[in-house]
């Protein structure tokens, strides 16, 4: 390949921008995690490890486990819904048209999508009004402000992010392989598990990551429909940042969130690499 004289010139703006507005802020957060809270917010330049004590507090641990629990539940439900949906679209004669049906909610404002569920599940929302009219219930059910509503609505907002990468990979999949497997005597479900699933694994991994990581960092959904019962990590970070103004503590929890998602990311990437090696053999 021919090298051109101006070399890395093109990448200079990119390097500068991402270094200044991404790397440096992250480094500041990571270093604040080891500093002391100032008297009126802000920080004092005194090294300490006491911000990390929060990770041993039962209240914090409860929120951490709840965040992981909600994110895992959301991911499982989303992927279970997304795989067959993406499969159906990829096998349809009307791919483009059906794909648009997925892209419209994907491009509909995130908060509007949350709001639409509030107007369904609220105490005088659509569902309660409907059930009371029918005489099935007498007093409104409390459908919002719990873990269930957070899971439901997070699935709703992340489903397009899972369907689109799955569609991309299923669309490229060669379905004659499944036919070949069946000709060789595999049952439907064997062909599905042993031929189809391994081949779309990278799509599943992407779908899982696009669902799990944003869920771990949720802020708006638990804030709007979670009430006090479903507070997540993002909410306590925001609380320490804006209300108690304990920035070192907010930084320490953010650092941990970065750590948890990075570990998840590394595990997935390793699993994918392994499965690739297996299928290459």
């Amino acid at each position, binding site marked *: 390949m*021919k090298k051109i004289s101006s070399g*890395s010139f093109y*990448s200079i703006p990119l390097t500068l921008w991402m270094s200044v507005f991404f790397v440096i802020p992250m480094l500041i*957060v990571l270093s604040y995690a080891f500093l002391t809270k100032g008297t009126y917010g802000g920080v004092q330049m005194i090294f300490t490890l006491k911000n990390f004590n929060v990770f041993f507090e039962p209240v914090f641990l409860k929120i951490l486990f709840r965040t992981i629990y909600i994110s895992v539940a959301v991911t499982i439900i989303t992927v279970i819904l997304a795989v067959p949906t993406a499969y159906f679209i990829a096998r349809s004669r009307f791919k483009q048209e059906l794909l648009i049906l997925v892209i*419209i909610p994907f*491009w509909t*404002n995130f908060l509007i999508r949350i709001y639409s569920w509030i107007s369904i599940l609220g105490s005088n929302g659509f569902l309660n009004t409907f059930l009371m009219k029918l005489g099935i219930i007498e007093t409104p059910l409390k459908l919002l402000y719990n873990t269930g509503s957070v899971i439901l609505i997070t699935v709703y907002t992340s489903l397009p992010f899972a369907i689109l990468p799955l569609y991309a990979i299923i669309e490229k999949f060669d379905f004659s392989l499944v036919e070949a497997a069946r000709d060789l005597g595999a049952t439907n479900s064997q062909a599905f598990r042993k031929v189809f699933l391994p081949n779309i694994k990278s799509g599943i991994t992407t779908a899982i990551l696009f669902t799990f990581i944003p869920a771990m960092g949720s802020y708006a959904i638990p804030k*709007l429909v979670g009430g006090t019962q479903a507070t997540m990590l993002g909410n306590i970070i*925001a609380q320490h*940042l804006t209300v108690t103004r304990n920035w070192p503590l907010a930084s320490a929890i953010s650092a941990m969130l970065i750590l948890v998602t990075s570990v998840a990311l590394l595990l997935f990437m390793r699993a994918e690499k392994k499965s690739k090696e297996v299928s290459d053999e």
Partner: protein
Amino acid sequence: MNKRRTSLFFFILSMIFFYLPLLILVIYSFNEGRSSTWQGFSMKWYKELFLYSDNIWKAFKYSLIIGILSSLTSTLIGTLGAIGIHWYHFKHKNYLKVITFLPLVIPDIILGVSLLIMFATIKLELGLTSIFIAHTTFNIPFVLFIVLSRLGEFDYSIVEAAYDLGANEFQTLKKVILPMLTPAIVSGFLMALTLSFDDFVTTFFVAGPGSSTLPLRIYSMIRLGVSPVVNALSVLLIVLSIAFTLSTKSLQKYFVK
């Protein structure tokens, strides 16, 4: 066939799941009353939205300004960066790959938090500038990856042919590389615009008082639970996103040609 029926079932389930809530919003937006009981057809919430909701339109204007400026900036930086990463070898390439990949995979709240802390440290006043910086930062990686994937399909011999025929570097960029990248640049720009228009979490942290974007305005309307104007606004936004989706399809066809 069995599998066909199962997948059809899940597809229908997903579509009901997607569209039922949106449909209910549309219906409520024409409701005369404030609550969820139907009290007759009315356009009054639309009237209120279009005539008496100055702060919504101000937020809309801010979203538009920031969206366009940050999309233009990130498209420029991202496209140049993609060309640089794809065709040149340099020392810090791995560093560059990591710092452009990471923002895609860490939760967006982290970017908001870390930028807020940095802006406070350097005493930059929060407002339109800080929102613009934040949006450009999360947009750049998306533009970069869209353009990079197009470059991956690109036949390098065309560039070499241009050089052999005597084009200099600038001419090659302008007459060969950029035209071939146009579809990707357009999708990157549109993606950035959408992300910017949609972002709540990062903006929430870096927006100062008095610089509300549309999502921030919607958020405070939902929290206060004020009036069904938010229904009318939602319908307007849903219609806009449908129009946008359909138009980009035809836009892309136009540019791919």
